[in-house]
């Protein structure tokens, strides 16, 4: 699990890692190039309850099976394999249905990077509640 490549992105001060196999494309929205639609947009900060006012200049397109959705991030980092990071399980004491999408953490000596699962995000009840409808202004 630790050797699998992950996209690390930052959102509202948190660092998250998403299996690169779920990532279809990353867009720099500040670049001024046309960004085609990619399914429904999820407010991932709202999903994780870490909402914070931000422009979120990156969009990450996600593909799970035949379903496409996307979310915005404050920053994206290099693709990482986490070969040298410590892989930590999510504490069983804190596990609930609501946080099932956080599989665990990578600890690189400086920070906890929350390892999230795109399929679990999509199957969660929070997914529908965190959608941004087309044309809906960002909070």
């Amino acid at each position, binding site marked *: 699990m630790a050797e699998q490549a992950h996209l690390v992105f930052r959102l509202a001060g948190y660092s998250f890692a998403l299996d690169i196999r779920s990532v279809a494309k990353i867009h720099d929205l500040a670049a001024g190039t046309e960004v085609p639609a990619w399914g429904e947009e999820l407010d991932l900060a709202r999903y994780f309850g*870490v909402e914070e006012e931000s422009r979120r200049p990156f969009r990450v397109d996600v593909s799970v099976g035949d379903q496409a959705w996307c979310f915005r991030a404050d920053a994206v980092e290099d693709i990482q394999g986490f070969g040298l990071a*410590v892989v930590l399980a999510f*504490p069983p*004491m*804190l596990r609930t249905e609501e946080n099932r999408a*956080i599989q665990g*953490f990578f600890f690189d000596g400086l*920070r*906890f990077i*929350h390892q999230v699962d795109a399929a679990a995000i999509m199957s969660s009840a929070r997914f529908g509640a965190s959608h941004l409808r087309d044309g809906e202004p960002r909070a």
Partner: protein
Amino acid sequence: MANLERKGALAAEPDSWLVFAIGSASLAVDLIRVVEIQEGRDIFPVPLVTPKILGAAYWRDQALPVLSPAVFEEALGQVRPQVAGRPELLAVLEMGGGWLGILFDRIVRVVRTEEIELREEPNPLLQSGVLELWGRYRDHALYRLNLERILERVRGG
């Protein structure tokens, strides 16, 4: 008769307690539950968990959940001044088949049960039930951690 019942109850209780301080309050926890005490650990926030949890710390190749100091401060009616920051000492407690970290300001002492002036009347639970007023130690009120209730609170109760 009441005294005999009380002695019987005491016989089933732990012998040694870690007495520690949060602000001006003295709290006690069964020493056998204390796995380790550390200082100045980084604690990382975790989304989608109860606000009773401050975050998680890296400990023995695990993500150790750390209880928010606000849980005890609310129970004690204390409010920590913003400038004071959070307590720097971290005790790792074994509870419920897992481990939970609690933050505190300083160790008072390890004491034996007979050193504590236990209350004769039933111990009142403080607000939220995570602490009970247990007795007095060195002329200070001593509160005992209610670990079962703390666990319930952590699990969302």
